[in-house]
């Protein structure tokens, strides 16, 4: 669905070599490990951990148990909420950066990614200091007299959501920024010239033409969020399990590689399904700006 905007004249045989380095990389570090996971998922846990290969659907049947399917649902719900949160916070920010900032544009963009310069783990632990019962946020709220008891955020779904949005926001802002930045500003003038006010211009022109950026942002945030396990671990206090956490624990602590593989493969299949459905719906509308 993402067609290139320009056709560069190049001999196809020569340009074919350009995919070779990445192709080799993906084959060895993506296709092969993924094939392992796929094969493992039909096997059993060995007596001392590890894997006994076989061909049974036992692991997938196990995954259908309520306790695991609930983890699936939690993951999808939290990832969706986190993605939505990023979109709601990210779109206005990207819009502002792309249309209202004229000087120091680079600096502003730099500010958006500055959190990325710190380790993910440290940033997430940092949030616990902010949102625990005696943290900065609660102290402030109580001193202002807005609440009499501390607001419980840490070790709740809300705390996790906060951490997810905080950590993944830049991934949403950048594609949105790019699509809004390259939006031809004379189109907005044309819209106003034809009698559309600011709001109508945004709805009719800006929003539909930024859809490719929205889609890219949603993908970039939603996909890693489904695999997220650090944030729920730290900010959820281990009380809320994500698929990422489940899979990690199967490989690292329980050493049940077969079950972990089945969970990983299921997650991938589920993601493919979700993405296909939603690309079909959004993609149709976003196709034309690229044509």
């Amino acid at each position, binding site marked *: 669905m993402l067609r290139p905007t320009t056709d560069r004249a190049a001999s196809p045989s020569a340009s074919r070599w350009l995919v070779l380095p990445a192709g080799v990389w993906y084959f060895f570090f993506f296709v092969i490990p993924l094939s392992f996971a796929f094969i493992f998922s039909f096997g059993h846990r060995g007596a001392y951990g590890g894997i006994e290969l076989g061909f049974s659907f036992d692991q997938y049947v196990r995954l259908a148990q309520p306790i695991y399917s609930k983890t699936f649902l939690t993951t999808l719900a939290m990832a969706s909420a986190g993605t939505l949160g990023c979109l709601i916070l990210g779109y206005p920010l990207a819009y502002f950066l792309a249309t209202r900032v004229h000087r120091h544009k680079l600096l502003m963009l730099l500010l958006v990614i500055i959190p990325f310069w710190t380790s993910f783990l440290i940033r997430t632990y940092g949030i616990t200091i902010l949102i625990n019962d005696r943290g900065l946020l609660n102290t402030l709220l109580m001193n202002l007299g807005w609440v009499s008891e501390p607001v419980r955020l840490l070790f709740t779904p809300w705390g996790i959501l906060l951490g997810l949005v905080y950590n993944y926001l830049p991934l949403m802002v950048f594609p949105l920024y790019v699509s809004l930045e390259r939006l*031809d500003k*004379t*189109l907005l*003038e*044309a*819209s*106003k*010239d*034809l*009698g*559309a*006010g600011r709001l*109508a211009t945004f709805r*009719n*022109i800006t929003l*539909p*033409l930024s859809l490719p950026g929205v889609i890219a942002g949603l993908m970039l945030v939603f996909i890693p969020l489904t695999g997220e396990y650090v944030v729920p671990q730290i900010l959820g206090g281990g009380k809320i399990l994500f698929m990422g956490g489940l899979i990690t624990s199967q490989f690292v602590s329980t050493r049940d590689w077969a079950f972990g593989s089945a969970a990983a493969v299921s997650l991938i299949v589920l993601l493919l399904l979700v993405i296909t459905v939603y690309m079909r719906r959004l993609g149709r*509308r976003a196709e*034309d*700006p690229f*044509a």
Partner: protein
Amino acid sequence: MPESWDVELQGVTKYFGSVVAVEGLTLRIQSGQFYSLLGPSGCGKTTTLRMIAGFEHPSQGIIRIAGQDVLGIPPYRRNVNMVFQHYALFPHMSVEENVAYGLKQKKVSVPEIARRVQQALAMVQLTGLERRRPHELSGGQQQRVALARALINRPTVLLLDEPLGALDQKLRKAMQLELKSLQRTVGITFIYVTHDQEEALTMSDYIAVMNAGRLEQLGTAIEVYERPRTRFVADFIGLSNFFRGEVIRSEGGLVVAVDRRMHLALPPHSGARPGQRITVAVRPEKVRLAPVSSDAPSGLVGRVASSTYLGEQTEYRVGVNGLGTIIARRQNSEIDSATPRLAAGELVQLSWALESSLILPEEGVASHEREG
């Protein structure tokens, strides 16, 4: 006000920071005119158009549209529409949706929109392309969509910002005539911005020649071409040979002393006074060339430095002592045995009718420096 104007600009000045884009511009544009703003890039013509549309606000001065002061009225509430330089068609909408956009904003009823879209598309000969997207159209077709999209709103004034610039020569010529006849049909005032003097001459009822943010001359095509009032206009519209000198009295009347030896006669009633420094402009096509026949030629004599074949015409560059190079153009259709083609190196006699000498004031260089 004895007359009513569709658009009136009064002492309009626009600064961008400390740069003056438009300075003290006063224009009155009558209803139903094809009015061109002509000038080189950076002369302020597009800024003027954008101020009328409402995208820029004048730093000083008043703009009235249909008698109403439009200060503070946003573009979407002005009854003017614009055809943008690169058309600015909405890429995610079909031709039909593009054209219907303005009426939709005005909440016109759906059947009425459908009817008027059909009408507008028929007017620009695009019937049958309703479902196409802009990128599936040729440049000329995109141009027509942009026209239909603007004209469907029945604006008081249609603003056109170099709309033919992106088309090839042949299509441009065809569109010029089409635009002109379209304007006559709809009777809407067109304000047309262009840097192409030929385009302006072909289409306009009235031309405002602009330079460095200021108005140089106002007039019909014939007036600005035949009677340029400044050296800039004489140079920008068509080609001219320029001779600077001082007016002195001689036996036959007033002449211009270009240098000590060379005197150019002035037409009667030129209005020039002895002692005045002026510039004389002569169009290349008014310069007559004749092979030197006698051994002692009189008048202006020069040597052909080069001849360039231009299709309909041949351009000669003739070196004249004391005057530099004079450019002359001759219609190729006039070449016959009596007036043969001239060759480089040939000695020729130059002459032109007295009334072909255009008298221009000697100008302060600073105020009229050409911009790039």
